[in-house]
């Protein structure tokens, strides 16, 4: 096998795949959050799962996916419950309650993480907060004959599998519950009157959101997951008036942001003459922002240019 190709497969392909799969999961769920006007909920969930992840790690001492996922899910459910409690008894609106709960949970996560670091536990705050795609690599067989065999699949990094499973779960959820999601997002009252449990749909959406967030921790980190949830969806919203197209476009935008972000972060600084590469997650978030800016200016109907031309405000 050619050494540049091997280097690509070993060092660049696994992080890129992991980033793309979590981008797919986040973009689809993010589309529904944006359309349901619940974008802040994505922020809330992605921040409040942090203490669950840290505690799960401290208790089991392993970084394997299942205990971490359980910890994250418990923290997510607790925060959702507490948001309701604060909303009801604090007599404040939902966004204020979310603001209180997710910042508290996130702070709790940081505190436990610092304690863990003080006790020399191998838990890297950088990894949880900013994501470290760079740490995902793979030692595949070095010749094509053995490369295309089942045993190769076993050596693929777990992060790639985790994000792939999240992506397929989300796609399956949307395909199976297409019309239920549509009616509960568009008209919750009719949804209820027709006998579809909009609360059940909402809770499933939240659980999947927690799945996608946990799967994306390794790739973009807890802070920047919100960029993948909201930016591609908001960009797609400017470009189309069809729900199906909206979902596909947001996935496309998320994937474009991931791949261009990865490439510019890995190779951009070298092209400009700098020695070090920059953080991939940060670059992906910047790229999603750039895409949103581009769409705001040049989108076919809702862009600034198009509005100027048609004389609308």
């Amino acid at each position, binding site marked *: 096998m050619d050494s540049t190709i091997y280097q690509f497969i070993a060092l660049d392909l696994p992080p890129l795949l992991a980033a793309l799969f979590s981008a797919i999961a986040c973009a689809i769920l993010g589309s529904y959050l944006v*359309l349901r*006007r619940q974008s802040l909920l994505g922020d809330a969930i992605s921040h409040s799962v942090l203490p669950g992840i840290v505690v799960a790690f401290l208790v089991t001492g392993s970084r394997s996916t299942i205990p971490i996922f359980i910890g994250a899910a418990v923290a997510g459910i607790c925060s959702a419950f507490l948001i309701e409690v604060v909303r009801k008894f604090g007599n404040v609106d939902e966004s204020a309650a979310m603001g209180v709960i997710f910042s508290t949970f996130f702070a709790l996560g940081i505190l436990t993480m610092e304690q863990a670091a003080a006790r020399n536990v191998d838990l890297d705050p950088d990894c949880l907060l900013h994501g470290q795609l760079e740490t995902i690599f793979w030692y595949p067989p070095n010749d094509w004959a053995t490369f295309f065999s089942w045993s190769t699949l076993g050596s693929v990094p777990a992060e790639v599998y985790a994000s792939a499973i999240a992506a397929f779960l989300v796609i399956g959820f949307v395909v*199976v*519950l*297409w*019309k*239920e999601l*549509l*009616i509960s*997002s*568009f*008209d919750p*009252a*009719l949804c*209820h*009157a*027709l*006998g*579809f449990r909009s609360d059940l749909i909402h809770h499933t959406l939240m659980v999947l959101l927690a799945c996608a967030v946990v799967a994306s921790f390794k790739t973009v980190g807890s802070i920047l997951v919100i960029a993948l949830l909201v930016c591609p969806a908001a960009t797609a*919203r400017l470009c*189309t*008036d*069809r*729900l199906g*197209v*909206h979902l596909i476009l947001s996935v496309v935008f998320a994937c474009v942001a991931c791949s261009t972000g990865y490439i510019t972060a890995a190779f951009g600084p070298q092209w400009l003459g700098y020695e070090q590469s920059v953080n991939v997650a940060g670059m992906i978030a910047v790229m999603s922002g750039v895409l949103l800016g581009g769409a705001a200016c040049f989108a076919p109907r809702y862009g600034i240019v198009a509005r100027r031309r048609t004389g609308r405000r």
Partner: protein
Amino acid sequence: MKLFSRTTPVSSLAGRPEHSPTSPLSVHAMTVAYHQRPVIWDVEYEAPAQALIAIVGPNGAGKSTFMKACLGIIPRATGLVEFWGKRFEEQRHRVGYVPQRESVDWDFPVSAIDVVCMGRYGMIGWFRRVSREHRSRAMECLEMVGLSDFAHRQINQLSGGQQQRVFLARALAQEASLYFMDEPFAGVDAATERSIVEILKQLKADGKTVIVVHHDLSTVADYFDNVVLLNTRIIAHGPVSSTFTNDNLRRTYGGRLTILEEVGESMASQR
């Protein structure tokens, strides 16, 4: 969740009457509270079959709340609601609902026909897709409200009146026997108002009952045959000719004489 506990309404559930299986809607001792304050208080009502019924009352009288509580969209503190003598869960497919136009986000990326198809979801059930037959039936309903040319328009490119007619078409697609409509005439143009009235009359001719939250007191007598005067309690209900009187209106609206004078004038001009 305890919404309302301090006092009990006058009539209790113990004295539950035998609801007739022919009445599309029977409400007994219904109280709805919001933040421990009653919005609907001890409502007793039996809707006649095959009738156009207006619910009339001042702002904040609980008209929308009455509908939503009947359909279980918001919880009731007390009370029993039956449809043809059975619980709502058993009669869901026979009850249609048109929410207020402002209650949904009209920027949502769906087309008019997609919205009308939602009326069929109850018949389709969980997990299954919208079949071609359901879609063509939805198209017929859109045709009935005169919007078949707009089927594939995104809903924010429709006028207020057209949006309201899309909602009406969606209700028609439900093929219900009893309809609840929350202010279908709010903010619509004269042409839309006429076409909605035509559809209401047609529904009645087909043997259906339609309960409408209505704001324009001057048209009550023209459009409806039955009226419910509501202000937290039911002040009066029955045929328009005997119930929709100045006296009852004054009791419903309290001291707001300007409205009453307007109505008086418009009624006088009709006679």
